[in-house]
């Protein structure tokens, strides 16, 4: 029996949303996950259902138009949803953390908010410009004179989004703007799917002299550094949750298979080598969940956790990769078949390390924290 990592016990509110999400994930999402992955899109009905359940804006206050739960409730929900479908969890994180949260925090009353929070349209963050570093340094796109020019790549869900949140240079600083993707001068110049998280496109957006207004602003001119840090930390914690869920799912599926599969006249789960493979999911999930809870509680209590968030994301994503690789191996030949879930977990996990600037960047930043100033 797997023990809980949730200590102290969840509050009544946290338990309420978790019960709702666990029920939804088990009863509805699990059976849809394979088709969502295969077709590379989340059915409209499911998107509407999740919007009605309030899953798009879990950690945003009711005053600001959200569901009014804390960040811990949100990331624990993400982990449960990721256990059923990684790409649906990533879709929710993309709407919540990479779009609605910064709007709620830095641009109360922005006209994009209600439409995205209610599920009426999708949002996407357009930030990265080179091989994927998540920092202000790589940003060349300019918004000087409220004219936007430049190019953003790797936009998660950029193809289906109606609204985009763009970070650009303005004067000496970085500013953020949210506006409609169909605004004149905005082009979807490239789009494709990815190895994993297949409902979300990887898109390139090109801006040619797009006219911006102060209404589009998210935060004040030059506030970008604070928004970047906000996005980065919360994004890292959200990714930790998704990695934890995928590692858990892979381990549970492989354990089930290993119990049923017999070779050499016994269940393969009796072999030490198989147990070693299965344990890597327990290790990854355990480490990820305790780091996840520490981070989310710090965020709920307003304590900066940018360092721990990096530790969490690196630990969780590398753990998930190992756990899903090991789980696939437990399945033997069946692991390579798309009629079993192991290869989906593996594909999703292979992508995790890349998001938000990649683990190499996080590791470099972590080294800085123990160097004398």
């Amino acid at each position, binding site marked *: 029996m797997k023990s809980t990592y949730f200590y102290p016990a969840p509050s009544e509110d946290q338990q309420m949303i978790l019960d709702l999400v666990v029920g939804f994930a088990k009863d509805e999402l699990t059976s849809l996950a394979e088709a969502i992955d295969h077709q590379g899109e989340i059915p409209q009905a499911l998107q509407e259902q999740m919007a009605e359940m309030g899953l798009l804006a879990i950690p945003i206050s009711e005053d600001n138009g959200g569901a009014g739960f804390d960040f811990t409730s949100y990331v624990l929900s993400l982990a449960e949803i990721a256990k059923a479908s990684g790409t649906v969890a990533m879709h929710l994180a993309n709407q919540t953390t990479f779009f609605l949260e910064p709007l709620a925090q830095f641009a109360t009353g922005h006209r994009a908010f209600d439409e995205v929070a209610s599920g009426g349209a999708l949002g996407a963050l357009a930030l*990265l410009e*080179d*091989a*994927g*570093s998540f*920092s202000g*340094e*790589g940003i060349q796109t300019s918004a000087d004179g409220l004219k936007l020019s430049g190019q953003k*790549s*790797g936009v998660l869900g950029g193809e289906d989004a109606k609204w985009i949140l763009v970070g650009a240079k303005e004067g000496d600083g970085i500013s953020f703007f949210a506006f409609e993707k169909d605004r004149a001068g905005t082009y979807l110049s*490239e789009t*494709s*799917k*990815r*190895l*994993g998280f297949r409902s979300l496109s*990887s898109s390139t957006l090109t801006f040619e002299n797009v006219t911006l207004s102060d209404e589009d602003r998210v935060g004040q001119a030059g506030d970008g550094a604070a928004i970047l840090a906000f996005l980065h930390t919360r994004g890292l914690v959200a990714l930790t949750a998704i990695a934890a869920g995928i590692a858990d799912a892979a381990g549970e599926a492989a354990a089930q298979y290993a119990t049923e599969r*017999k*070779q*050499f*006249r016994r269940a393969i789960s009796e072999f030490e*080598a*198989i147990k070693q493979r299965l344990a890597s999911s327990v290790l990854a999930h355990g480490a990820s969940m305790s780091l996840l809870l520490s981070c989310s509680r710090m965020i709920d209590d307003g304590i900066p956790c940018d360092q721990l968030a990096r530790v969490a994301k690196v630990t969780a994503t590398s753990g998930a*990769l190992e756990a899903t*690789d090991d789980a*696939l*191996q437990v399945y*033997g*030949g069946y*692991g*390579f*078949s*798309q*009629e079993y879930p192991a*290869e989906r977990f*593996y*594909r999703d996990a*292979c*992508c995790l*390390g*890349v998001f938000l600037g*990649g*683990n*190499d*960047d996080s590791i*470099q930043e972590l080294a800085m924290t123990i160097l004398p100033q």
Partner: protein
Amino acid sequence: MDFQLSEELLQLQAEAKQVAEELIAPGARDRDENKVFPHDLLKICGDKGWMGCLVPKEFGGSDIGNLGQAVVLEEVAAACASTHVTVSVHNSLMSTPMKKYASAELQAKYLPQVASGAWLGAYLLTEPGAGSDAASLKTTAVEDGDSFVINGDKMWITTGDEARLGIVFARTELDESIRGPKAISAFVVDFEESGGVTFGKREPKLGIRGSSTVAVFLKDVRVPKGNLLGERGRGFNIAMDLLNGGRIGIAIQAIGIGRASFEHALGLVGSLERAGKPMTKSQIVQFRLADMATRLDAARLLALRAAVLRDNNEPHIKEASMAKLYASTIANQVCREVCELLGDAGIRDDGIAERLLRDCRVSELYEGTTEVQKLVIAKQLFADCEA
């Protein structure tokens, strides 16, 4: 110790590289996306002699040995893993048993067709309930007059529904007192002549989607007694001997895929920047590439050592498993690291790195999983201690 390939092999390698780059690589993405079996390319490989690397020239083979095969097929694997596995299985698991274990009559009838690639071959060992535990297979071959009648289900059969010929492993001793490996015999089955062979649907797979992988159902398949390969009751030994060669082939496949991914990254980093800095100036990038190149070279040395031992008829069970174990492990690492190194471009569908990552994963699964290789190696280590 001679680490230099002969003039002849260097020429073969250069030719293979050119053919692979010009003819095989260009359609690889399309074959993956649309699950296209590489008929045209197999014809080219046949014309080049690569479908009969181990077949004597008198039967139309190129007879370049395991070393020659390894050198040539690495180029094919680097261009298209789906094409490679089809060619590799045909060579290691069809032409080899024909040459080593078939009667002169069978050789005369089949080897020329095998060597030219006109008739493709499949290897039918694995069953739904007999994967790593291959000796527990349930397919039976019962004597009936001048024939054996074979019944059973086979699983994960590479090239199954595209093959004309199969090497089928079946239980010939149904008496419960003769159990395990000693009850198994090997047969050549001509799918067209024998009747009773049907195929399942093609497996939807993570990678090598241009190759065919199917279940094969054998129902009252009648083969002449002369189609028995080697001695009755020696089938499992034959199966394992063939896998020793096959494992060198899969090691080479992994090395080819890993090399392709590595070379793709090496070619790209010169033009990429991260956080405003050229990637080639980054130690993270430099060290990762250095590690990849080192591991790929080490894997190739292991694989070529095993190939030379096999060519020289020297013991190579441990060495073949070591080559496959190491090559498949590090090639998958290389493919994953390249994807991570290239960022979002690495995991996009329209790039090459994500396909290579998907193609590569099977190298740790077929012709003996990573676990089976370790069991084989450990068993040999203990045997060496006792000797």
